[in-house]
């Protein structure tokens, strides 16, 4: 190669050129995304056909839908042979689908308000990075307010329950400095003592500051699904933490108690646990006491969720580098201090997406209570509504409505979880 060929100096810089026409615009997108190869083109055609069929099958049904009608037969008359939905069942029976058929209709505002407040209460927890932590007070108050709104009765029951928690928290805070381990126990005992004592006072206050009481068995509809989901998940997180720590423990007896509990619960279907709540649990309670079915169901679902949450948190604990434990040890922190200040805050943060997954699954599973003849939304549909003479045979509209309710809630939660995961990934490291 001669000198002239191998050496080169550019005299003029090239300007940026536009790409060839095939490389831009809709055509390029279509070719790359839908028709990149014969097989791909075939897939596209099949997919378009499927979408077409879905649209053809459902569009007239939705468009022709009747929204006002007293019964299915009236609906059919109005449709006059056309294909169409009878959404009138929703406009007629929405209250039963949401609140059950026995909840006094003049009190719907109470669970409705509790539902709206749920968002206010959940926000500081869900968006903890954007909302100052002092608003967590609202989250803490919510269970007591919601209980009072839904069940009614004297305000002193939720109030004393709240005071018990506050007393426990106060004792915890005061003893924390002396010993982090004893503080947990002392706080718990203080709350327990307060509750037991207040149990003697409450009967005298039954008539003070009363909202019209509603019996547990009068609750129903989607409200039950939401209530069971929220209650059981919130209760199961602390139990899940304890079980996970127990399972990680180096003490064989404690470890095996936790392992057996977790694996047993995870090994059986939720429905068998609901059977336990329905027909077996009563045998294990002191003779003469009777628990609400709803309370028994809450106990069993909480046990169920705790086992799953424990496994999620165990994963979080295992994901922490060993160095974190060693660093805490080397500074002289004891077990309870290391857990509360170093290990759990980090492990829980890692576990949030997993916990949200469990929550979504559990929320969907609350429909199983319809099998033990509780009237949640599925129970309402299969029971009172489909059995009524007006609406016997309206399947799609009802099941579709329930499916949409669940879809909106669960899809929303899982989108939130994915958003949160992205947030946590970019978090400081």
């Amino acid at each position: 190669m001669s000198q002239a060929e191998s050496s080169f100096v550019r005299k003029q810089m090239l300007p940026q050129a536009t790409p060839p026409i095939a490389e831009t615009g809709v055509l390029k997108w279509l070719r790359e995304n839908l028709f990149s190869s014969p097989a791909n083109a075939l897939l596209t055609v099949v997919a378009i056909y499927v979408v077409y069929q879905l649209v053809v099958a459902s569009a007239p049904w939705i468009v022709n839908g009747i929204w006002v009608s007293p019964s299915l037969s009236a609906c059919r008359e109005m449709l006059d042979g056309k294909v169409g939905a009878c959404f009138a069942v929703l406009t007629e029976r929405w209250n039963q689908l949401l609140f059950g058929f026995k909840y006094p209709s003049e009190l719907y505002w109470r669970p409705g308000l509790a539902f709206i407040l749920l968002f206010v209460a959940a926000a500081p927890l869900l968006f903890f990075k954007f909302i100052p932590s002092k608003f967590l007070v609202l989250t803490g108050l919510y269970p007591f307010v919601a209980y009072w709104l839904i069940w009614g009765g004297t305000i002193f029951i939720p109030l004393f329950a709240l005071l018990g928690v506050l007393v426990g928290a106060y004792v915890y805070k005061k003893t924390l400095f002396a010993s982090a381990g004893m503080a947990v126990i002392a706080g718990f005992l203080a709350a327990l003592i307060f509750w037991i004592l207040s149990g003697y006072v409450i009967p005298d206050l039954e008539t003070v500051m009363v909202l019209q009481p509603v019996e547990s068995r009068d609750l129903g509809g989607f409200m039950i699904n939401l209530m069971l989901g929220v209650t059981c998940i919130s209760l199961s997180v602390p139990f899940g933490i304890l079980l996970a720590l127990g399972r990680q423990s180096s003490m064989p007896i404690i470890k095996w108690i936790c392992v057996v509990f977790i694996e047993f619960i995870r090994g059986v279907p939720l429905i068998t646990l609901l059977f336990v709540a329905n027909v077996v649990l009563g045998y294990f309670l002191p003779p003469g006491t009777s628990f609400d079915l709803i309370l028994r169901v809450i106990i069993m679902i909480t046990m169920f969720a705790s086992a799953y949450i424990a496994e999620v948190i165990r994963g979080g604990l295992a994901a922490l580098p060993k160095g974190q434990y060693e660093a805490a040890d080397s500074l002289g922190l004891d077990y309870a201090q290391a857990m509360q200040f170093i290990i759990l805050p980090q492990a829980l943060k890692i576990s949030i997406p997993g916990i949200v997954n469990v929550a979504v699954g559990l929320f969907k599973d609350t429909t199983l209570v319809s099998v033990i003849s509780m009237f949640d939304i599925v129970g309402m549909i299969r029971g009172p509504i489909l059995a009524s003479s007006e609406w016997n045979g309206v399947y799609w509209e009802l099941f579709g409505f329930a499916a949409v309710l669940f879809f909106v809630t669960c899809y929303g939660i899982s989108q939130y979880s994915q958003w949160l995961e992205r947030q946590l990934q970019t978090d400081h490291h």
Partner: protein
Amino acid sequence: MAAEEKVQVSDKAAVEITKMNKWFGTFHVLRDIDLTVYQGERIVIAGPSGSGKSTLIRCINALEEHQKGSITVDGTVLSNDVKNIDRIRSEVGMVFQHFNLFPHLTILENCTLAPIWVRKTPKREAEDVAMHFLTKVKIPEQADKYPGQLSGGQQQRVAIARSLCMKPRIMLFDEPTSALDPEMISEVLDTMIQLAEEGMTMCCVTHEMGFARKVANRVIFMDEGQIVEQNEPEEFFNNPKSERTKLFLSQILGH
């Protein structure tokens, strides 16, 4: 002697290890270790990987349990009593290879956590002490950041400051520079040298032989769980006695 120019070593023992043995399962990691570290003394422990040098200093603050022999730290015999273990740990600072800062706490919170909860120092005072030591390791301006936002060298200096905040009488360093990028090693070593000059009792497991020459009173060479040779740095490097030591030195100083 070179060492005596740099230090005043008291004849009171800071750490006294007698006939200490440790097994991992059936593997005999530490065999009949006898070692006394005097107050104000700086010791560098060297040796090939797997020789048990990290395990040795981790035994001193009971991160590892030993099975035979005794360890006395600052006059307290290391026993199975948890209160005793916690007391010794609060007297002994430890710096890890991977820093082990708490990523969910700010730099300042990292430094004040143990003083507040273990030493029961009032928060305000703990923060003043923390800022003092952060200034000393030359990163006071990072106090409100999180560990993940700092470079490796800065993190390791925070880790040193975090240990110092407990006002320890002895500092243990477990390969403090091994996980660092080359350009960050010197800033950590400078901090350690400064500490040495102030008379802190130090046990360092490290491969930084320059550091050993400069600050150590004694270099201890370990292999196969035993102390093979110990000597003053000059003697150790210029005139090693054992064949194993010679081989080791030729390997790490070979290039």
